[in-house]
């Protein structure tokens, strides 16, 4: 708890400063509120408009947790397969790139026709967003195994599988988490975008409805909710990272 407070005060300070600057520039530059509402106004809506947005919260949370979880799994499995089968790696690399370059507006109709309007097409979109950074980071992590240890493993007769699980996998963990952090950041936004495929509840829906009725303050409430969700997810992942990569010397000692 202590470290949370210790670590937390800096970003909090910066955010508060940011909000203050924002508030004053809005006031001084007389920026109209439908364009960029003042933070005070947004917080007002955040506090008093709960009954409007609360029901939209849970579906998005659900969506992005499930999406990220499956996205990670897909990303990791893809990374592993592409790593251990070099033939596939070369053959499918372009397909990975293609998968990231198909715009949702094209994908959406296809997904809807194949999977209907339920959760499936939405989760598909989140997966598509999330798996890529994970796969790429993982592949790069695998390639950075220590030569000497690799040679030891081979001379000791380790099978490919053993080399993978005992050396390459643990060695790639830091890279993997680097990728997961990127994906987690995208996942909430991915969920919001996926809701534009057709959902009746969700932050994406809330945002679009607010947008079309010119309630910019509510659009910003939606953004705040998205950011909070992202930060929570990220915090979770960093916690997991700490649990899983325990051997790393404490930063305090090695860096200064």
């Amino acid at each position: 708890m202590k470290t949370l407070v210790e670590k937390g005060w800096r970003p909090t300070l910066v955010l508060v400063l940011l909000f203050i600057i924002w508030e004053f520039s809005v006031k001084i530059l007389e920026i109209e509120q439908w364009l960029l509402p003042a933070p005070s106004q947004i917080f007002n809506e955040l506090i008093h408009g709960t009954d409007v947005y609360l029901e939209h919260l849970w579906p998005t949370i659900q969506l992005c947790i499930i999406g990220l979880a499956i996205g990670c799994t897909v990303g990791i499995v893809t990374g592993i397969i592409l790593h251990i089968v070099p033939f596939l790696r070369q053959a499918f690399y372009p397909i990975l790139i293609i998968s990231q370059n198909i715009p949702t507006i094209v994908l959406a109709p296809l997904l809807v026709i194949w999977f209907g309007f339920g959760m499936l097409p939405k989760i598909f979109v989140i997966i598509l967003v999330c798996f890529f950074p994970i796969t790429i980071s993982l592949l790069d992590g695998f390639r950075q195994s220590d030569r000497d240890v690799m040679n030891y493993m081979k001379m000791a007769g380790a099978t490919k599988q053993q080399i993978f699980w005992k050396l390459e996998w643990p060695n790639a963990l830091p890279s993997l988490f680097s990728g997961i952090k990127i994906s987690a950041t995208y996942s909430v936004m991915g969920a919001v975008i996926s809701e534009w495929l057709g959902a009746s509840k969700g932050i994406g829906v809330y945002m679009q409805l607010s947008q079309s009725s010119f309630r910019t303050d509510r659009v910003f409430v939606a953004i705040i909710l998205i950011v909070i969700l992202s930060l929570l997810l990220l915090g979770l992942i960093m916690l997991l990272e700490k649990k899983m990569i325990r051997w790393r010397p404490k930063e305090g000692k090695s860096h200064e």
Partner: protein
Amino acid sequence: MSKLEINHLSISFGSQKILDDITFTAEEGEFISILGPSGSGKSTLFNLIGGILIPDEGSILLDGKEITGKRGSISYMPQSHALMPWRTILDNVLLGQEIAGKRDEKKALEMLGKAGLKGYEKHYPHELSGGMKQRVSFIRSLLSPQSLICLDEPFSALDEFTRFEMQNWLLSVWQQYKRTILFITHNIDEALYLSDRILVLSNKPASVQKEFIVPFKRPRTEEMLYSAEFLKWKQDIYREIKQYSL
């Protein structure tokens, strides 16, 4: 117990020939030391026996079967310690066994104790001194099940006393389980104290220049180290090496 035959082994890195027509045999249960100038190709020879390098020419036979380019036939201790930074010391020494299929924690703990590493079982490699890491790597090779052991300068970072302890321990393990040992060292005392035979390699390219059959009886004692005969042998070998160095 294994019999190792090295036949006419040659290898080059790029245009530079490193090993040139290396030939020798290690009998079952024999303890052979390999001496040679730094950079001559001793570690490369181990890499060939271990199967991660393929010779340009020649073959390697273990118990009559060709193992050229085949892996997993040796208990190996590399010159760099090659420990995994994310594994505790205990898990590191068990790695060789894990690869072969079975973990024997009890024996590992006992061995760690013998090597003066009691209390460090749950530590990570970065918390150990250089010599301690070397002992961990040494134990890992002892715990590996293959009966041909290849040790690449295993005691270079140890003080004389700890080194002596480790040497005696190695001898007792060797005698008890009758494993065949190839032992790279730069320490002539050590080579004489431990081995049945000493091979001296030349430099650039390396080939077996001389073979000394160590005459001392086993079990060997500390006194032997101070005997005149020992000193004579030592000087002989030193002279032999000098002529191939630099």
